[in-house]
């Protein structure tokens, strides 16, 4: 497959302009670790943007970092770590989940897929931290939006649109993200042996308390070992972060408040932080690559109902994050359509949506990967796509068929 590797924005714009003129589709690739995410791209050319790499500015006191999109996320996290800062939305590394190597994803790829880990419930997703960008749209034109400051409402918030657009609207050439201090201490409370209903009740009580919970997840026994090695019983995890005296005081208070759910075990510092990285990386489902993986977002209280509807019909494994609002669901590969009908119906009944995260290219090409939209919304999305990329040359088909 022909592969282009433009070296700067001008060259990139020229290339995209040519592709637009001739209606030639381009598959945009940086680290390439998420090629298995979304529908398979139907394009005759690859657009390699690895020349757009490097951190351009990092100002810890201003809480901003500006970098080119192909910069490895690991490099950014290392640099932030030196100033005791982080990307607070805790993006996971889905490389291993999708059969790729760990540690190779790029900043731009992470933003384009709008990743967010367990801290999503308190601190938002990638969308909430992309402050501004430069890009080349599907028209082959260089443009920018947003800014390099943390508070800005000048013009439409196109950063939100870029986050989660899977490279289908524009090719990012530079991004500015908001960064935040890394908490000094982490404490995780573990409640053992709860069923889904009781687990969500415990997480709700914790999240509704003033103890500033920054993570709430529940792992049934089948999924627990990848997060808490050696564990065999269902575990409900609640995270507290902040200055050490604060974490200690809140953990003690919350343990007391949750005593109806059992005696909570306390994991501190690295032991308390490690499980959340495993959750962000979807570690429970890495080991069985033949299973189809769904990511379901619903109102937290609907989590157990949605899970019951799915496990009642399919031999599915499910674990919960976001206080019950995020369900990771692994369905046997032999299941027809990856269990799509049942999973989608359950998510829809709860007013949420389901995304097919891991499946064969054949399946991802055949059934919708993203939640199908009602006609008016679908038509609007199509008009937005066409406003940025009228010839539909950027990652064609990645999100929806014919788009």
């Amino acid at each position, binding site marked *: 497959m022909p592969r282009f590797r433009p070296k700067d924005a001008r060259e990139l714009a*020229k290339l995209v302009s040519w592709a637009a003129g001739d209606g030639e589709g381009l598959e945009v690739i940086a680290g390439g670790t998420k090629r298995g995410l979304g529908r398979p791209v139907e394009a005759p050319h690859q657009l390699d943007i690895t020349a757009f790499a490097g951190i351009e500015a990092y100002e810890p006191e201003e809480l901003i970092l500006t970098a080119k999109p192909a910069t490895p996320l690991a490099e950014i996290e290392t640099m932030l770590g030196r100033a005791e800062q982080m990307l607070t939305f805790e993006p996971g590394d889905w490389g291993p989940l999708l059969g790729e190597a760990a540690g190779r994803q790029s900043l731009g790829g992470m933003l384009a897929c709008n990743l967010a880990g367990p801290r999503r419930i308190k601190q938002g997703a990638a969308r909430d931290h992309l402050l501004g960008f430069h890009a080349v749209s599907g028209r082959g*034109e260089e443009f920018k939006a947003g800014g390099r400051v943390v508070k800005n*409402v000048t*013009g439409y918030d196109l*950063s939100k649109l870029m986050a989660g657009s899977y490279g289908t609207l524009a090719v990012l050439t530079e991004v500015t993200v908001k960064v935040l201090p*890394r908490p000094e201490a982490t404490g995780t409370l573990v409640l053992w042996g709860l069923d889904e209903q009781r687990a969500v009740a415990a997480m709700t009580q914790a999240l509704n308390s003033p103890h500033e919970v920054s993570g709430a997840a529940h792992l049934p026994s089948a999924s627990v070992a990848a997060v808490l090695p050696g564990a065999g019983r269902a575990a409900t995890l609640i995270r507290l972060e902040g200055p050490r005296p604060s974490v200690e005081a809140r953990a003690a208070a919350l343990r007391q408040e949750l005593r109806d759910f059992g005696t909570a075990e306390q994991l501190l510092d690295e032991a308390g932080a490690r499980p959340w990285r495993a959750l962000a990386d979807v570690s429970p489902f890495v080991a069985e690559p033949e299973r189809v993986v769904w990511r379901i977002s619903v109102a937290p209280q609907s989590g157990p109902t949605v899970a019951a509807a799915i496990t009642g019909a399919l031999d599915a494994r499910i674990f919960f994050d976001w206080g019950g*609002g995020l369900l990771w669901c692994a369905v046997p590969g032999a299941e027809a359509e990856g269990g799509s009908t049942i999973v989608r119906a359950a998510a829809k009944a709860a007013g949420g949506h389901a995304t097919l995260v891991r499946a064969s290219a054949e399946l991802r090409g055949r059934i919708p990967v993203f939640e199908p939209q009602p006609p008016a919304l679908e038509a609007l999305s199509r008009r937005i796509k066409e*406003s940025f990329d009228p010839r539909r040359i950027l990652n064609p088909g990645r999100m929806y068929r014919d788009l």
Partner: protein
Amino acid sequence: MPEPDAGVIARRAEIAAALREIVPGEGVISEEDARRPYESDGLTAYRTLPLLVVLPSTTEQVARVLRFCRDHKIKVVPRGAGTSLSGGALPLADGIVLGMAKFNRVLEVDFANRCVVAQPGVTNLGVTLAVQHAGFYYAPDPSSQIACTIGGNVAENSGGVHCLKYGLTTNNVLGVELVTIDGEIIRLGGKHLDSEGYDLLGVMVGSEGLLGVVTEVTVRILPKPTTARAVLIGFPSNESAGNCVAAIIAAGIIPGGMEMMDKPAIHAAEDFVHVGYPLDVEALLIVELDGPKAEVDHLIGRVEAIARQHRAMSLKVSESEQERLAFWAGRKAAFPAVGRISPDYYCVDGTIPRKRLPEVLTGMARLAEKHRLRVANVFHAGDGNLHPLILYDANKEGELERAEALGADILRLCVEVGGVLTGEHGVGVEKRDLMDTMFNPVDLDHQMRLKCAFDPEGLLNPGKVFPQLHRCAELGRVHVHGGKLAFPDIPRF
């Protein structure tokens, strides 16, 4: 503003009659006296009497009104409480004002899912009032929160003093129901997180009424912090205050609020509310820590130590809720306080990289002198959002024009140092003509095409945000030339 269409104005009575078929009775206001209260918003220097005012009370009515307007090419200016400081709800002589005041009910309080579903005309404070009995609150708190509506907050992506820690409106909205100019009812998001497909929810927030009319909003609510304490710190210079702010953030502390005032603002506030602000300092910083008690008590000590390292001349830690509120009383009264020392004031809203603060304040003083006006500064110091208050007297020939010119110069200065035109008040009509200081024509075209995807005839709130209106057909043209090019200079593999 776009030239009013005399043909539409001539048909006022006929249009009113047709709209009364959709919104009966007093829902359509046509008498001049009754239209008068709608002629401006919080940016009172600009006034236009609208063609008609329509006050629907159901989503279905909104949809039918918008479809009617689209079919008859009538412009629509959506309006919440009309507290915009950028003229976002400034009417058009040939357009209707679509007032959302009757959408004033909280539809659902869902503590278990930590969210509230409200109609757009509910006030910002109304959301908190609906949940505070259970220890919850809605975090974004613009200073107009008693009056401003949640729908207006969505349109403007409103902030407030707590947004460094808790985010702007966009970070706190989970879902909306909106009606397009075609009368289509679309739901984005809900009680769950993150959208399916393109993040149109993120696009709607802050779109200043140009993309659609929001008829329902779902926001997340938070448990109220158990403790809040504030430190009041005086500094010998703006620079040392700015350095102290940077040092607090570099130390890993994100305060719930961090506000700075310059000398003119301190004096105006103290003269007004007498809360004991030090008058011998050049800059005053209020740092508020909120959260669990153990955390607040710990961090207060650290902030105190940092302030002392940064030449603090005076430092007081609030020891009671009463004292904390007193620290804030001056800051919160800063606008009316300035209103006491000047017949009129004009509030500017730009954001700068915080490290450029000293030079921006120096530059601002120079500009004020050039325009022969005085400026007092209040500043959301944590996130670099400046609110210079320009003092003027509208009754003096040419002073309003000079105040506006000074405001524009200050915003240009913000952009020059790497900042932006507006941190939280929106572009509206006020900063519309400055958009080209931040964006080039290609940047603006990409934004305007997004508008075309929602509103191809440009009927929703035209004349706001964008300095020049282009026809969508013209914007949509693909300016590329077909034919294979060789690209000898692009490496291929």
